[in-house]
């Protein structure tokens, strides 16, 4: 709602680079102003439900980019647990009950067990991160996520020196996640990161976006966001985190080992075997706007390139 005042579809979007602080301040000011206007229009009982995370501060590493229109981000999701249709997922995912929610922590760590999401949230202060999001299908958007650094959470589980990788698993519930009744992928969905990737300050756990709770189709109540990797690495509706000694077998890698590598870092120089990755369609831009040239590590090279020093990125794609 108030967001619309700032970032109106197809006008404000694309790569309008503004000085970050100016931009963020403006964002917050307009937000506050709009909040007041809206607040005066709605009954008191409803107020609390709107903009749950409006006061969450902007964290580091936020791109100085205008966010993609909220409606576009909400209604264009790949959530194969429900459907392969990016729009139908909005309606189908409504059936998912995201509270109460618990996360099982297992493997090479001292502090394992079942944790309530509420408790996890209590010990991890929230912040906002505006990140680019680049899908392996060659489209991209900019999303203001609300959440906390993944490392903050993982450190509390005290991974041991044997923990070389972190494996994440999505909820398996074919009664509700009707896409799981078919076999487009092997269920449940599994993703993974090398421990140093997981502990990198850019790796983020999102519980919200656009100052509000995460919509179900965007991965509620808890999803990973790894902005320098293709979107499918950013696993949704996480129920299990396991620290492992060996590289986790991830869902897309199992489905197409030649097409989707474990690393799946955004890289314009390594095409998908069936299509180019050198350009991306920026959602929300005018239909006459040419595609944007994709950047190595999705533009986060300065932060993450050192993680892969000496590695052949064509081999470890």
């Amino acid at each position, binding site marked *: 709602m108030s967001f619309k005042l700032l970032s109106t579809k197809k006008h404000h979007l694309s790569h309008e680079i503004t000085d970050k602080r100016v931009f963020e301040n403006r964002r917050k000011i307009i937000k506050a102003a709009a909040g007041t206007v809206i607040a005066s229009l709605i009954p008191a009982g409803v107020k609390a439900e709107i903009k749950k995370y409006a006061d969450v501060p902007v964290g580091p590493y936020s791109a100085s980019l205008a966010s993609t*229109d909220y*409606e*576009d*981000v909400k*209604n*264009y999701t790949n959530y*194969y647990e429900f459907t*392969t249709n*990016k*729009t139908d997922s909005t309606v189908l995912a409504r059936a998912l009950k995201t509270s109460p929610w618990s996360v099982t922590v297992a493997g090479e760590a001292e502090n394992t067990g079942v944790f309530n999401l509420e408790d996890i949230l209590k010990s991890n202060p929230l912040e906002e991160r505006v990140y680019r999001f680049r899908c*392996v*299908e060659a*489209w991209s958007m900019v999303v203001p996520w609300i959440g906390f650094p993944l490392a903050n959470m993982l450190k509390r589980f005290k991974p041991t020196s044997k923990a070389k990788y972190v494996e994440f698993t999505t909820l398996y519930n074919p009664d509700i996640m009707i896409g799981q009744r*078919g076999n*487009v*992928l092997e269920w449940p969905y599994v993703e993974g990161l090398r421990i140093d990737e997981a502990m990198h300050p850019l790796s983020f756990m999102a519980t919200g976006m656009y100052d509000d709770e995460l919509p179900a189709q965007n991965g509620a109540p808890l999803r990973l966001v790894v902005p320098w990797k293709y979107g499918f690495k950013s696993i949704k509706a996480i129920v299990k985190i396991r620290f492992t000694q060996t590289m986790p077998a991830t869902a897309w890698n199992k*489905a197409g080992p030649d097409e989707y590598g474990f690393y799946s870092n955004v890289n314009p120089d390594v*095409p998908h075997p*069936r*299509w*180019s990755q*050198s*350009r991306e*369609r920026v*959602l*929300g831009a005018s*239909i*006459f*706007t*040419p*595609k944007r040239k994709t950047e190595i590590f999705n533009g986060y090279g300065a932060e993450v390139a050192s993680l892969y020093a000496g590695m052949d990125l064509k081999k470890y794609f």
Partner: protein
Amino acid sequence: MSKNYWRLIKTSVFLFFLMPFVGLIFDAIYDQLGANPIETLHFTLGDWALRFLCLGLAITPVRKIFKQNWLSRFRRMIGLYAFFYASMHFLVFIVLDLSLSWEALLDEVPKSPYILMGLLTYLLLIPLAMTSTNAMQKRLGKKWLSLHKLVYVAGTTAVIHYLWLVKTIDGEPIFYASLMFILLSYRLFNYFKARWSLSA
């Protein structure tokens, strides 16, 4: 039946088959193409091109099996509609997806076998559309029938184009591939049946 009657029916069918295109124009005007408008235009037009290709190839089997000869009156229109939607699909690709950029074209097309398969399909349809008039049919005589057998190849490359494009093979591409397989098997079956009865 009278000539006027058929003219009315044909005009109605013509307008009916134009509806998906009109729908897209309206969606574009009213900003209803979703988060990725170019993709919506591109995919919807491609879907319709494939649907008309299947429909055109279904005319002969349905006409013969159910003895409905009047169906062949619509075959040319359906074929030309397949070409029309394929042309719009191609135009969206060149003008909107690639933004008329040679650089983008030369970079993306060679890396994408599914695009090459789509381009091949479109190339195959061009001579068929160009020779669709009565005059051309007369001029080519027996060669016309042989030439128009190219549509069997185009049908095959069209479904391969679709199958190679998707990340996971499910629902729709499987549906069209199966349908095309049945429609083309009918021809293959008839071909071998004819050969067998000749040699027997």
